[in-house]
């Protein structure tokens, strides 16, 4: 079992498992956000539930943070190891002839997604933690009113065109990351059955979900 930790295949599988976990999380995140397009009240209720439910807050949230950190750290560690495997570079390397840009630049798309996540955490997560656990306000209400604050806060954030533009850039790179990453995760785990279905499903997911996030960001920007 100790050999498993050092093994290149085990590292691949660990990356794949954390990726699939994040793919499932992203779907959940998208579903909640998408509600905001249709109903302010339902979005507020859903957000309040996610933000105050102890199971979500103290079990799922820490697992998610571990999953995110692991995926990024492992990604950078593997890239460093892979660079070391070719100490002398080619004078001419025609990578585009035999592999897609997405598959060759997972670190680039990953780094942009990381930068996006830093802003996203600052925008929402740090704010949530401050309000709930530093200031101790678990009500979820706009001070002095009976209205839940989540929709208002999101709407306010997406009034800034620079933030919206940066969010959209992050989603585009997320799409490129997923176009390779989705099917790659299954290949890493040795799953070749239903290969065509997995590739098609991955392409649909990689385009629809980031495009959906872009739509939500633009929706709130336009309706500000």
């Amino acid at each position: 079992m100790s050999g498993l930790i050092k093994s290149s295949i085990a590292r691949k599988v660990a990356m794949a498992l954390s990726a699939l976990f994040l793919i499932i999380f992203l779907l959940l995140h998208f579903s909640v956000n998408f509600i905001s397009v249709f109903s302010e009240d339902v979005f507020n209720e859903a957000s309040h539930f996610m933000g105050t439910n102890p199971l979500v807050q103290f079990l799922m949230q820490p697992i998610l943070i571990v999953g995110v950190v692991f995926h990024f750290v492992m990604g950078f560690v593997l890239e460093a190891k892979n660079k070391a495997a070719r100490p002398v570079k080619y004078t001419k390397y025609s990578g585009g002839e035999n592999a897609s840009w997405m598959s060759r630049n997972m670190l680039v798309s990953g780094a942009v997604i990381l930068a996006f996540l830093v802003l996203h955490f600052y925008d929402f997560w740090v704010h949530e933690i401050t309000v709930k656990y530093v200031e101790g306000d678990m009500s979820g209400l706009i001070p002095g009113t009976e209205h839940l604050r989540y929709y208002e806060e999101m709407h306010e954030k997406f009034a800034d065109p620079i933030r919206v533009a940066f969010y959209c850039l992050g989603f585009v790179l997320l799409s490129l990351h997923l176009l390779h990453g989705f099917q790659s995760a299954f290949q890493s785990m040795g799953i070749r059955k239903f290969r065509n279905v997995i590739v098609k499903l991955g392409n649909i997911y990689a385009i629809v979900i980031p495009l959906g996030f872009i739509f939500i960001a633009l929706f709130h920007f336009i309706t500000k």
Partner: protein
Amino acid sequence: MNLTLKIWRQKDSKAKGQMVDYKVTDISEHMSFLEMMDVLNEGLVAKGEEPVAFDHDCREGICGMCSLQINGEPHGPDRGITTCQLHMRMFKDGDTIVIEPWRAAAFPVIKDLIVDRTAFERIQQAGGYISVNTSGNTQDANAIPISKEAADKAMDAATCIGCGACVAACKNASAMLFTSAKVSQFALLPQGRVEATDRVMNMVKQMDLEGFGNCTNTGACEVECPKGISLENIARMNREYLAASVAKS
């Protein structure tokens, strides 16, 4: 046709190499790439210069010795062939062709365009075989029923000639395609199942020890492989390895 060649020259494994420009003239489009290299070397020898060292043997795409990175691709711009099968008609008069050795920490340069690929031998020796009693009562292999599908897939994997193009093409210098082909050719057959657990564990361990990079499923290896070895083999090796890890622990 007349060509400019940019070739990696390196005196020995310790020397610092560099790209050197050469001109070759009156090259026939019917020549193979290695014949063009022969013309270059004949010219260099005639001038009293050191010829360019490169690996070659059978010159018919079977032995796996030829190993040139040509214009950024292993075995050049054509598909499903080795360097010795590459024809000069793939190039145009006046072209500049960049010729380099395979680049990988696990494939150190011995001289010029020749690299040490014994890392592959060591991976093979770590488990790429079956143990057979050869004391006179060896069972006829054809006596064991094998499905057509398994036989075909095992044969496809066994066509790997171990040239190293997969490592050369991979942006991570990963040897997963080679190792997985060698694992698969046995894993698919009943004779190979007996030692399957130890085989995959030992071969992957050796592959990692040699300093090859990690596979990120770019698929460049499959595209550049002269024998068309499929990524399906890598997936099979991953399954074999995970199952073996559980069995061993």
